[in-house]
């Protein structure tokens, strides 16, 4: 290491050594002269004593840098000069490597940010996610790993295992900091949140246990550093300022540390609200402390010295007794014996959570590893390409190398020189690749859509990323230099000096092996691309099951603007009426929940036919207005749509009718007509199926396009539709509709934000963002791979033809036909292509299961896809080989033989 440092300060070292030696020299000369020697004689003797100043300097330099490092430095200089002389070669090689290194680094950056990066908090490795394994006998809303607020408080008391336990839930609120309210991402957190994570305030104070007392008693918020900087211009007097959260005034008490962005990399909160203020943060949500509502993720910090397994085992006895106590309490819901047992069999599960909790990570985990693997293959391909180029150049440099060998250079020394060549190239490629990384990252991040909550992904390269890029550059340099270096080791000196500009047979064999590998790598990537593109087109062709053209949707949440339920209902009815009157709007309808967002309202159901059926899984539910199905263009296959009859008089709870989809009828009623069957939500013995099924609707997507689910619809009740997603079928372009809709809502309430205002086509695209990312990226990787291996194949075939010109000439002279010569060359190419395919297919078969879960309607071993990809590869590869082969047929025998 010291030696490397010395390399950078060698100027200074040299100066010092010169002075030191000069001092010695002068003193010695003086001493000798004073003992009577004449000056010239004295100088001569001193030089003799020292054994030559240059020699001493060289020896000291060896101490500074060690021998091999100095040699390497000289090699690099020599290589650089050689590269500048041969720009075409250099540009091709550097570009191939830059593409490979840039792509790998960009994907690695995403992997790092989304999957590997630990939270910037105190000892993140001690954080664990606490989850309930089994039936919680509770209702839930939110994403994954949900539990109730009370259980978080109870877990916090298990101080034998935990240094603290926190819970949190992400939400969107309407926030006004002075001007109009805007939707903003917030995190509802327990008072322990910041202290358990060990986050410090940048200003003021953070939330604590006192802020998490009686409901509604602590109207305070902590702002994120980014929000404070960007939205409030970093105002120094922000502490004590009042902001409106869903029109409830709250006081800013602090700003969190600059690097802390919540615990979810995919949803960065603008600010934090104590859980005691849940009713204000989520309008109408007044059951924060309900044991039977699961809506928060719970994380704990393990005590030092307590292992995860130990804590998990230690918690079970307490948890068991708590379950039994809970089950005996009066409030415990009535359940079937089966579900009751499932509840009592529940366990508590701990998983390491140094990265926090993120549904984005969950969604991207597999796709990102798949992409990283694909880029690694691409990089390997680029290395092979450069290795091939080097071999080609190696044969051009043949004489130089043979001469150096003959003059006594060691084979190791020349091998090292060639390695220096490729490392230098790879470093140049790495620099170029890293320069491209920010652009590539921006493109990648743009694949991930954002709503109110931004993600914390950054497109800048940090030190860790640069380290990674350096590492893979050096390794790809070594990889691509390996083959040429080995080649030198095997070279027969006399043979190559005797030959005329040609090379030994081994070199051709090595190059063919490289091209074969390239073809194999390429086929793997092309098949991958075919599968992912097929998945995306399959999903797009399937569509959501309804016509998306000219369909526009948006959401209104008046309760977040401080509306009472009754006033919110009035506003929604007014907007509905006015939109219905807009001439450009053909049809319009309202649903309680938006489609294709990944989420849904779901519950198990009880069905009463001649017997009682309980659904074996969750049914997706929605409440819709009359005309909803017609607006979407879905078909009512039996029965009728909702109409005025289905709305109950004001004050009467529940619905009197329901519509189910075909999948529901098929799964639970097996061919019987569902009309007249009675159903209800819930699966307990106290569930009373009283809602009559009045219609059956054809299947369409609710949560996402992949999913096929059982669905049931209720009429959206006139008296409690206090938030709504509007669906509009428009004539002409959606843009004109956008303006008139905006005007209507502006007139109704200028401060009311419109959420998710977009065409349903766009919503479909958003819901397919992961699939699109995989298809586009794997498609471009496949194309690049194809290009790289074509260059490789073309190169080696041209070389073979040049080399065999003489042989071909002889054959022609002896009466061979031209077409037989084409075949002679083409046969070589076909062998390589076939061998490549033979290597690739087992790999595809083995790798298939890693991507299986990302595919739709196609198996990783789908014979049609594999055949198509192989055909594309063969066609292009043969195309690349035909040109050199044709040249072989055009050889003039007299010219070819005149070389002799």
């Amino acid at each position, binding site marked *: 290491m010291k030696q490397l440092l010395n390399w950078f300060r060698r100027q200074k070292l040299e100066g010092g050594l010169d002075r*030191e030696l000069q*001092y010695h020299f002068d*003193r010695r000369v003086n001493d000798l002269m004073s003992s009577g020697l004449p000056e010239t004689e004295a100088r001569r003797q001193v030089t003799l004593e020292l*054994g030559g100043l240059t*020699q001493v300097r060289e020896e000291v330099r*060896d101490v500074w840098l060690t021998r091999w490092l100095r040699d390497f430095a000289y090699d690099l200089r020599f290589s650089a000069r050689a590269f500048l002389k041969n720009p075409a070669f250099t540009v091709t090689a550097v570009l191939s490597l830059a593409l490979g290194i840039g792509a790998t680094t960009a994907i690695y950056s995403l992997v790092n940010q989304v999957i590997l990066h630990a939270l910037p908090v105190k000892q993140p490795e001690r954080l664990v996610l606490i989850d309930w394994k089994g039936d919680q006998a509770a209702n839930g809303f939110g994403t994954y790993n949900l539990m109730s607020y009370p259980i978080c408080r109870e877990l916090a008391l298990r101080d034998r295992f935990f240094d603290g336990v926190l819970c949190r839930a992400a939400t969107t609120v309407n926030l006004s900091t002075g001007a109009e309210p805007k939707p903003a991402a917030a995190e509802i957190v327990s008072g322990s949140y910041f202290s358990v994570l060990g986050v410090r305030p940048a200003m003021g104070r953070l939330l604590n246990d006192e802020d998490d007392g009686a409901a509604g008693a602590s109207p305070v918020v902590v702002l994120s550093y980014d929000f404070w900087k960007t939205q409030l211009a970093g105002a120094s007097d922000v502490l004590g300022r009042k902001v409106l959260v869903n029109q409830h005034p709250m006081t800013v008490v602090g700003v969190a540390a600059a690097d802390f962005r919540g615990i979810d990399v995919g949803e960065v909160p603008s600010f934090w609200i104590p859980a005691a203020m849940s009713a204000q943060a989520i309008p109408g949500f007044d059951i924060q402390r309900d044991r039977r509502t699961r809506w928060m993720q719970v994380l704990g910090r393990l005590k030092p010295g307590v292992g995860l397994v130990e804590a998990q085992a230690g918690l079970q006895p307490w948890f068991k007794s708590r379950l039994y106590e809970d089950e005996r309490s009066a409030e415990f819901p009535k359940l079937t014996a089966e579900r009751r047992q499932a509840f009592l069999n529940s366990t508590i599960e701990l998983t390491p959570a140094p990265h926090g909790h993120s549904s984005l990570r969950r969604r991207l985990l597999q796709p990102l590893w798949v992409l990283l693997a694909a880029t690694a293959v691409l990089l390997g391909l680029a290395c092979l390409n450069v290795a091939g180029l080097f071999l080609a150049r190696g044969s051009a440099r043949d004489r130089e190398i043979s001469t150096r060998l003959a003059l006594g250079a060691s084979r190791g020394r020349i091998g090292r020189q060639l390695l220096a060549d490729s490392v230098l190239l790879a470093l140049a490629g790495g620099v170029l690749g890293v320069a491209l990384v920010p652009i590539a990252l921006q493109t990648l991040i743009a694949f991930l859509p954002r709503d109110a909550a931004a993600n914390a992904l950054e497109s800048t390269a940090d030190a860790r990323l640069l380290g990674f890029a350096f590492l893979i550059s050096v390794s790809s340099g070594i990889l691509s230099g390996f083959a040429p270096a080995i080649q030198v080791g095997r070279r027969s000196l006399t043979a190559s000096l005797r030959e005329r500009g040609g090379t030994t047979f081994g070199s051709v064999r090595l190059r063919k092996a490289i091209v074969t590998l390239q073809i194999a790598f390429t086929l793997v990537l092309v098949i991958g691309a075919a599968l992912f593109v097929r998945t995306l087109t399959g999903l797009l062709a399937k569509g959501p099951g309804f016509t998306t053209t000219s369909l526009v949707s948006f959401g209104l949440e008046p309760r977040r603007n401080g509306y009472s339920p009754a006033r919110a209902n009035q506003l929604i009815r007014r907007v509905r009426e006015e939109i219905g009157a807009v001439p450009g709007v053909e049809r319009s309808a309202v649903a309680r929940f938006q489609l294709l967002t990944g989420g849904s309202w779901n519950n198990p159901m009880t069905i009463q036919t001649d017997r009682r059926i309980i659904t074996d899984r969750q049914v997706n539910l929605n409440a819709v207005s009359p005309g909803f199905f017609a607006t979407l263009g879905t078909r009512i296959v039996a029965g009728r749509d909702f109409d005025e009859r289905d709305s109950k008089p004001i004050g009467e709870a529940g619905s009197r009718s329901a519509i189910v989809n075909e999948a529901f009828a098929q799964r639970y009623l097996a061919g019987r007509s569902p009309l007249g069957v009675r159903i209800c939500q819930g699966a307990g013995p106290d569930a009373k199926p009283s809602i009559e099924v009045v219609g059956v609707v054809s299947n369409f997507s609710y949560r996402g396009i992949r999913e096929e689910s059982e669905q049931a619809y209720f009429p959206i009740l006139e008296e409690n539709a206090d938030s709504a997603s509007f669906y509009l079928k428009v004539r002409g372009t959606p843009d004109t509709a956008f303006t008139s809709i905006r005007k209507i809502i502006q007139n109704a309430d200028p401060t009311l934000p419109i959420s998710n205002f977009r065409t349903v086509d766009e919503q479909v695209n958003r819901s397919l963002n992961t699939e699109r990312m995989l298809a586009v990226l794997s498609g471009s990787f496949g194309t690049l791979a194809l290009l790289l291996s074509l260059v490789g194949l073309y190169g080696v075939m041209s070389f073979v033809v040049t080399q065999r010109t003489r042989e071909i000439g002889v054959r022609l002279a002896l009466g061979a036909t031209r077409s037989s010569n084409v075949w002679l060359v083409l046969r070589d190419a076909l062998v390589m292509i076939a061998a490549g395919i033979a290597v690739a297919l087992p790999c595809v078969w083995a790798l298939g299961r890693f991507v299986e879960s990302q595919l739709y309607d196609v198996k990783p071993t789908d014979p049609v896809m594999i055949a198509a990809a192989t055909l594309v590869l063969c066609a292009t590869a043969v195309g690349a080989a035909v040109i050199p082969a044709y040249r072989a047929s055009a050889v003039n025998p007299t010219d070819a033989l005149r070389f002799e």
Partner: protein
Amino acid sequence: MSSPRFPIPQGTLDMLILQILSLETAHGYGIAQRLEQISRSVVQVNQGSLYPALHRLEQKGWLEAEWKQSETGREAKFYSLTRSGRKQLAIERDSWSRLTGAVQLIFDEGSRS
């Protein structure tokens, strides 16, 4: 050139340098002169090999160097022993005496039989 002298045994130069510097700090020429005095009639030190040795010892952290005014008034690079250099000297002295002791024993044995 006076009477024939031994070339210095491999590896002992480092030890001699450490020993000289353990008494006082010195510059390269000073060390060369001390070596010359010590070894006048016994061993022969190639002065050219002194500098690579000094730089090697400095790189190992056994010596540290400083530019100071010398007795002639000109600036010279003065070397001195570091703490780890002192430790190293003790180690080498110990192993040297064990080696010579062992060799002596072998010779004694040989002369008895």
